[in-house]
Structures are given as structure tokens and as C-alpha cells.
């Protein structure tokens, strides 16, 4: 009986040692996503704060550590027609006052100004790939001259490209493809997959199939990015 008790005692001691050994701990760090969602859309000129001279381009970009800030500039795209050419059905190339020629990602000479208008941005989100963010254009029914004259917005079309964009490098088709404005309403002009930088250059044309009265016709298109 005494022998048996002694055995129990030793067994208990063994258990205590095992427990002490098991107390050796592992350290746990909690990884917390901070500010995980972000969207950025730039049509025409943009502004970045931070280092300049991106890859020797003289401008700023993300790759040099730049951070985008709000830019209230509204760039224009325009064309002036000689009286003899009005309504002759020959499309007229439009030019922009935007000076955004280099990619705002890496400073690459991406667009040709004043012929092309830069559009770019990204949609940042954590987690697995989600539905793409949509970029839409809110378009008035017509351009107006302030005295009752109008030109339908559908007279304006655009094509899309970008220096260096090829199917081989995966940058074609353009994420912001060519199109034609609707006459009033909202239309989708592109989409951005999550966690990718997206950019294209647009060449606008005036179809010139209408014969409006002489004057200056203007209209503003609002581009909006909406993330899931």
C-alpha cells in the first residue's frame, strides 16, 4: 500500500513538471488592416504631394512616393471650326488644355498632349478580389451657346490608347475604352479592378454632322468613380 502511494506521488510530480513545461508561451501579434479602402480618380491634371522628379520626368507620381491630393481643375476639350467646314461630316479632332502627359503611376510618357486627355486611378481594398469599381460620366443633353443654340453631346466621341500599351504586356484592351457620349444621362466609361492602377489616354473628336448656328457651345461632363 505504501509503495502504491509513493507511485501516485511520483506520477503527480511528473504531471506538475509537464504542466510547467507546457506554460512556455508563443507570442501573438494581431495584424489589423488600417484604412484598407481607398479610391482615386483623375481626369486631366492631378496633383501629388511629396517628392518630385518622378524617374527623371520632372513631375510627381506614386512611384516616387507621391501622395494624391484634391485638384479642383476642370480641364477642357475643344475644337474650333472654320465656317466652311461646319457640318461637312468630317470629324474634327479636339484638343485639351490638360498638361497631364506622363503616367501618374511611374512618370512614363504615356499621353500626347494636347491631343489626348489622361484618365487614371485605382481602387484599393483588402480581402479577395471584389467587383470592379465603376467610372461613369454624367452627361448633359446638349452643349449650349447661351442663346438657345444646342449641339447634341452624341456629336462627341473618343478613342482610347496609351503609349506602350499592347496586348502582349496586358494593357490592352484599354480599361477606359472609346465611346460616344449619350444625349443626357449617365453612362459607364470604364471600370477598375481592385488593387490595380488603371490609366488610358483619350482622343476626342467632334463628328461634325450637325449645322448649328455660329457661337461657342459648352457643356460639362462629370466623371464619378463608385466602388463596391
Amino acid at each position, binding site marked *: 500500500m505504501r509503495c502504491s502511494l509513493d507511485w501516485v506521488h511520483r506520477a503527480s510530480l511528473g504531471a506538475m513538471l509537464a504542466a510547467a513545461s507546457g506554460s*512556455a508561451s*508563443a507570442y501573438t501579434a*494581431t495584424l489589423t488592416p*488600417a484604412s484598407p479602402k481607398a479610391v*482615386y480618380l483623375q481626369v486631366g491634371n492631378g496633383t501629388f504631394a511629396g517628392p518630385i522628379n518622378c524617374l527623371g520626368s520632372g513631375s510627381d507620381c506614386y512611384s516616387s512616393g507621391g501622395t494624391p491630393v484634391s485638384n479642383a481643375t476642370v480641364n477642357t476639350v475643344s475644337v474650333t471650326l472654320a465656317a466652311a467646314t461646319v457640318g461637312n461630316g468630317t470629324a474634327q479632332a479636339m484638343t485639351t488644355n490638360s498638361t497631364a502627359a506622363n503616367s501618374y*503611376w511611374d512618370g512614363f510618357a504615356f499621353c500626347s498632349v494636347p491631343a489626348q486627355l489622361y484618365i487614371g486611378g485605382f481602387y*484599393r481594398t483588402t480581402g479577395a478580389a471584389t467587383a470592379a469599381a465603376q467610372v461613369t460620366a454624367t452627361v448633359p443633353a446638349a452643349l449650349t451657346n447661351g442663346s438657345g443654340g444646342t449641339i447634341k453631346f452624341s456629336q462627341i466621341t473618343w478613342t482610347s490608347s496609351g503609349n506602350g500599351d499592347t496586348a502582349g504586356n496586358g494593357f490592352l484592351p484599354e480599361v477606359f475604352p472609346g465611346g460616344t457620349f449619350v444625349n443626357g444621362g449617365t453612362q459607364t466609361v470604364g471600370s477598375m479592378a481592385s488593387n490595380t492602377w488603371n490609366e488610358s489616354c483619350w482622343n476626342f473628336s467632334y463628328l461634325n454632322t450637325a449645322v448649328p448656328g455660329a457661337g461657342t457651345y459648352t457643356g460639362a461632363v462629370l466623371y464619378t468613380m463608385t466602388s463596391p
Partner: protein
Amino acid sequence: MSTARRATFFLALAFGIIWAATARAKSITIDDSGSAAIEPSVLMRWKTAAPTRSAAGKLMVGTTTIRVRINVMPWLKHSGRIYLALPAQQPGPINLSWTTQGRFMAGQLASGNRVLVYAGPITTPFMEDTLTFQFSVDGALMRRAVPVTYHFEMDEE
């Protein structure tokens, strides 16, 4: 009888030698309950503010500083090899790099592995250092906060 006993002895000795040659050093998790984090959690941010056009910019990184204090009393006055181990775990592949104040070695490792941070005599009951860790995780895996566990382990010689 005497010959048989002697043969048994040599056989046992032979087995013992073979066992010693093939045995791995035993790894024991070291008590690091004395460690303390300076920041309560590791804030993970995008490594680059914007992604790349090729979708390669999805990496999130976060940094934290830990005052490491491990209890090496059981190995006092012995030599030991101490490893930092990052087990394979959720949310998926994790890369960890760290700098030190000099008591341990700086290094880096991927989850599922371990890296030597100290080799030599154990001369004090506790070993302390301040380590700055940087975690790197694919942002696609970081929908929510996730606990990540690592530990120090001693290879007994």
C-alpha cells in the same frame, strides 16, 4: 552465459551509437511570457500607396516593436541554439523580418519556417532584446484583423 551477456552489451552499445547519430536536437518552446509589445496591434498598411498596373502591388506591411524577454534558466551554463519560429497559419503566407539591438541576430523568414537568432553559451537566466518586427501579407488575405503567432525555441544539444 558470460559470452551471451557480453554480446548483448555490445549490441546495445551499437544501437546506442546509431541512435545518437540519427537523433535530432530536441526543440523546446521557450517561455517568453515576459515579453511585451510596445504597440497593442500591428497596423497593416499598403506597402505602396497605389497598386501597379500589373496588380503586383497588393502587399500590406506593418511594424511593431517587442521587448523580448525569454526565460532560458533551464539551459543556464549550457550552450544552446535559439530560433525564432513562425508556424504556417492563417490568413496564409506571411513574411517576417526583424531588427534587433544586438542580443539576438536580425533576420527574416517566411511562415512555416524558423531562423537562428542566437547560438552560444547561456549565461543569464533571461535573455532580453528589443526587436522591431515587420510583417508582410498579401492584402487579398487581410479582410479583417488576424492573430499571428510566433515563438522562440531552443535546440537542446
